[in-house]
C-alpha cells in the first residue's frame, strides 16, 4: 500500500510540478537551532502598550528579565536580583542586584535602571494591568547594585506581579522603538521577524548567566491547530508550545519520535454566572446549576479527559490551593429540588472558540436534564464577546478561560462581569495582600472557599498545559505558571 501511495505521489508530482522527489523537508538549520510552534502571534514587541499573552510569552525571561521570576512550582525566585529583604512593616524592599549584567545594546544594568523601569510603568505604560504598580511610592538608588523600593502600603501581590511583564527591566537607552527593537538583559535577542510567520531569536553573546543550549530559536506562528500538528509531524518545527486540540494527541503518543509533556496551567475554564441579575442573583439557583453539572463527564467529553477538576479559582501551583471540586458533587436530584417551581430559560453567550463550544454543549444537555433550558449564542472572540458580555454584562451564562495568574482577585471587584459583590471576600483579599506570607495563604484559602460556597461561578476544569516535542528536546517547564514560554532551560537530550 505504501509503495503504491509512493508511486501515485511520484507520478502526481512529476506530472504537475516537475519537481525532483526524494529530498526531505526539514528545519533548515543545525543542531543548535530549535523551532517552536505557537498559535497566537505578537502584534508587535511592545507589551507596555499592547495587551495580550503572545508578547510576554515570546519575550519574557527570554529577551527581557525582571528582578525575580517564577520557577516551575510557582515560587518567586531570584533573577536580576541576587536576593532581597523586606522591612517589618512590609513596605520597603531592598534588592541586591547581579553585577556584570549588560543590556543587549551594551548598556550596563544598574539600580538606576530598576528605578527607571518601575517608575516608567506608571508614566508610560498604557495596558491596564499596569495598575498593579500603582502601589509603588518611590524607588531609591542606594548603590549601583542596590535598589530600594518603597510601597505606599504593604502588598504581596506587588512582588508577585514583578515576575510578570510588569517587572521587566528596560534601559533608558533601549526604549526608543519598543514595538520593533526590544532591548533586554535576557539570554536571547530578537534577530528578525516575518509578520504572519515567525520571529527569530539569537543567543545574546554577552549574557551574564548560563548560556542557553540553543543558539537560535525560531518561533513559528501557526494559527490552525491541524497545521501546527502537521508542521511537527513533517519536521517543519521541533516543538508545539501548547496543544489546543486534545484529540490530536494520540498520533504523537504512539510515536517514539515525539515526547508529550503534560502539566497544569493558570487557565480556569469557567462557567460564568451573572450574579447581578435575576435569576442568577439567587444563590440557590447558582448552587443548583453547580450540582446539575457533572464536571468529570464534561472534561472527558469536551477535552478528552485532559485537565484538572478544581472547584474554585485556584490552580494547584498557587500556595493556597485546596481541592474543592467535591464540595458540590454531581447531584441532579438536589438540583431539581433547589429549582422546584422555577421555570428557567438562560442565555449562554460564549466566545466562538473550540473549548467553549464543546463545553457549552455538555452544559446545555446536563442543565436540560434538571429542567433548565439554555440557548447557546457563540460570539466572535475577542471583539464581540468582550463588548457584549465582558463590558456590557449582557449575559446569563458564559464559558471562558481565565488565563491570568491569580485572577481569583477579580472576585473582589463588584464591577467585574461576574457581578459578584461580597464584602467578606473583598476584605479577605485586602488582608491577604497586606499580611505576612502565612496570613496571605490563610486568607486566600478563605476567599477560595467563600466563592465556592456562594457558587459565584462554576469552575468546570483547569486547562492542561500540553507540550509536544521531538524526543531529543528536553527541559520544558511542565506547569505553565508564568506568562513566559521559558526557553532558557531547554536542553538537548
Amino acid at each position, binding site marked *: 500500500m505504501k509503495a503504491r501511495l*509512493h508511486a501515485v505521489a511520484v507520478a502526481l508530482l512529476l506530472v*504537475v510540478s516537475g519537481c525532483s522527489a526524494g529530498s526531505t523537508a526539514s528545519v533548515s538549520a543545525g543542531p543548535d537551532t530549535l523551532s517552536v510552534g505557537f498559535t497566537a502571534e505578537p502584534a508587535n514587541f511592545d507589551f507596555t502598550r499592547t495587551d495580550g499573552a503572545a508578547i510576554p510569552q515570546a519575550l519574557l525571561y527570554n529577551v527581557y528579565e525582571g528582578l525575580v521570576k517564577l520557577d516551575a512550582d510557582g515560587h518567586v525566585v531570584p533573577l536580576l536580583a541576587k536576593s532581597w529583604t523586606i522591612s517589618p512593616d512590609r513596605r520597603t524592599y531592598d534588592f541586591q542586584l547581579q553585577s556584570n549584567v549588560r543590556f543587549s545594546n551594551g548598556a550596563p544594568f544598574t539600580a538606576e535602571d530598576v528605578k527607571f523601569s518601575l517608575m516608567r510603568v506608571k508614566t508610560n505604560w498604557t495596558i491596564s494591568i499596569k495598575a498593579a504598580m500603582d502601589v509603588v511610592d518611590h524607588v531609591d538608588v542606594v548603590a549601583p547594585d542596590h535598589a530600594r523600593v518603597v510601597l505606599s502600603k504593604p502588598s504581596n501581590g506587588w512582588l508577585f506581579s514583578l515576575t510578570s511583564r510588569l517587572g521587566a527591566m528596560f534601559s533608558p537607552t533601549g526604549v526608543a522603538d519598543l*514595538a520593533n527593537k526590544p532591548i533586554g538583559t535576557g539570554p536571547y535577542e530578537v534577530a528578525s521577524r516575518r509578520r504572519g510567520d515567525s520571529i527569530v531569536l539569537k543567543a545574546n553573546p554577552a549574557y551574564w548567566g548560563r548560556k542557553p543550549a540553543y543558539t537560535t530559536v525560531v518561533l*513559528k506562528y501557526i*494559527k490552525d491547530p491541524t497545521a501546527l500538528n*502537521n508542521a511537527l509531524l513533517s519536521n*517543519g518545527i521541533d516543538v508545539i508550545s501548547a496543544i489546543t486540540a486534545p484529540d490530536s494527541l494520540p498520533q504523537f503518543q504512539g510515536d517514539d519520535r515525539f515526547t508529550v509533556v503534560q502539566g497544569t496551567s493558570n487557565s480556569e475554564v469557567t462557567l460564568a454566572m451573572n450574579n447581578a441579575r435575576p435569576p442568577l442573583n439567587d444563590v440557590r439557583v447558582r448552587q443548583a446549576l453547580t450540582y446539575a453539572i457533572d464536571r468529570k463527564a464534561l472534561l472527558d467529553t469536551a477535552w478528552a479527559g485532559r485537565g484538572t477538576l478544581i472547584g474554585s479559582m485556584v490552580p494547584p501551583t498557587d500556595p493556597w490551593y485546596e481541592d474543592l471540586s467535591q464540595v458540590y458533587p454531581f447531584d441532579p436530584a438536589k438540583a431539581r429540588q433547589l429549582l422546584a417551581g422555577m421555570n428557567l430559560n438562560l442565555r449562554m453567550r460564549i466566545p466562538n472558540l473550540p473549548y467553549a463550544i464543546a463545553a457549552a454543549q455538555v452544559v446545555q444537555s446536563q442543565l436540560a436534564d434538571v429542567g433548565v433550558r439554555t440557548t447557546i449564542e457563540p460570539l466572535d472572540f475577542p471583539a464581540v464577546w*468582550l*463588548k457584549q458580555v465582558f*463590558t456590557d454584562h449582557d449575559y446569563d451564562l458564559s464559558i471562558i478561560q481565565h488565563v491570568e495568574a491569580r485572577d481569583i482577585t477579580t472576585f473582589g471587584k463588584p464591577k467585574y462581569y461576574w457581578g459578584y459583590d461580597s464584602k467578606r471576600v473583598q476584605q479577605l483579599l485586602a488582608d491577604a495582600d497586606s499580611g505576612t506570607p502565612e496570613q496571605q495563604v490563610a486568607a486566600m484559602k478563605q476567599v477560595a472557599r467563600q466563592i465556592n460556597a456562594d457558587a459565584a461561578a462554576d469552575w468546570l476544569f483547569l486547562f492542561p498545559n500540553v507540550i509536544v516535542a521531538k524526543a531529543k528536546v528536553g527541559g520544558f517547564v511542565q506547569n505553565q505558571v508564568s506568562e513566559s514560554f521559558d526557553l532558557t532551560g531547554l536542553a538537548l537530550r
Partner: protein
Amino acid sequence: MTVKVLRRLAILLVSVLVASIVVFLFMAVLPGDPAQVALGVNATPELLAKTRAEFGVDRPLLTQYLDWIGGVLRGDFGRSYVTRETIGPQLLDRLGVTLWLVGAGMLVALVIAIPAGTFAAVRHRKPSGAGVSGLSQIGVAIPAFLAGIILVQIFAVQLRWLPSGGWTPPEQDFGEFARGLVLPALSLGLVQGAVLTRYVRSAVLDTLGQDYLRTARSKGLRPGQALVRHGLRNASVPVVTVLGLQLATLLIGAVVVERVFVLPGLGSMLLDAVSARDLLTVQGIVLVLVVGVLLVNFVVDVLYTVLDPRLRGS
C-alpha cells in the same frame, strides 16, 4: 478602440470609489470596539475613551471616511490599531506572497486545463475523452482547502518530501521557496484547473463544429493544424472570460489556502485583522482585493477587443 478603453477605465474608477464607500460602511457597522480589543480585558473606561480618540474612531463617520480615502489616494493606508505600524508597507509585503500563490495556482490550472480540455473535446466521443471529462467533474467538486489538507497528509506528513506549510522569501532561498509553493499552488490550481478544463472542452467543442473549420479541413489542413490555426483563437474568447472570473476566485481561495499552509499573505493578514478588529487594516486589505478583482475584469474587457476584432468597432 481608445474610446472604449477610456470608457472602461472610467467605469473602473467609479467602481473603486463605490467599493471604498461600501467597505468603509461595512467596517463601521461591525460590532466590536477596536479600542477594547486593543486594550484587553482590564481596560478602564477612561483609557478606552483615550484610545478611541487616539484611533480617531470617535469622530463622525464622514470625517473618518474622507480622512482615510484621502490617505489611501496618497498611498497612506493609515496606522494599524494593533501593531501601531503603518499599514501600507505590510500590505505590499503580504500582497507579494498572495500574488506568487495566485500566479502559481493559475499556472497549474492552465497547464492542466488547456491540454486536458482540448484533448477531451477532440476525443469527446471516445472513452479517453469522456474519462478526462469525468475526472474534471470530480475535481470541480473538491474545495481547495480540502485538496490542501489531503496533499499535506500525503506529501508532508506521510512522505515528508515537502514542507507542510510556511514561507521562505524567494530572495532568501529560492529552492526552499519553490518547495514551499508546490503544495499550496497545487491545491489552488488543481481545482481551478478542473473547472477550467470543462470550459476549454466546451469552447473547443463549439469551435470544432463551426463551418470555417470544415472549410479549413477541405483546403487540406490536418485536423490538428486546422484547430491550432483557425480554432484556438476563437475558442479563447469564452475561456478568457472564465479565466477572469477564476482569478477572482483564486484571490478569495488564497485566503483559505494561506491559512491551511501558514503563508503570510493577504488572506491570513485579513483573518487576523478581522478577529483583532484592526478595522483600518481590514479596510485596506479589502480595498486592495476589490481593486484587484476590478482590475482583472478591466484587463479581461480590454483583452476581448484584442482577441476578437469584431468587438473593436462598436
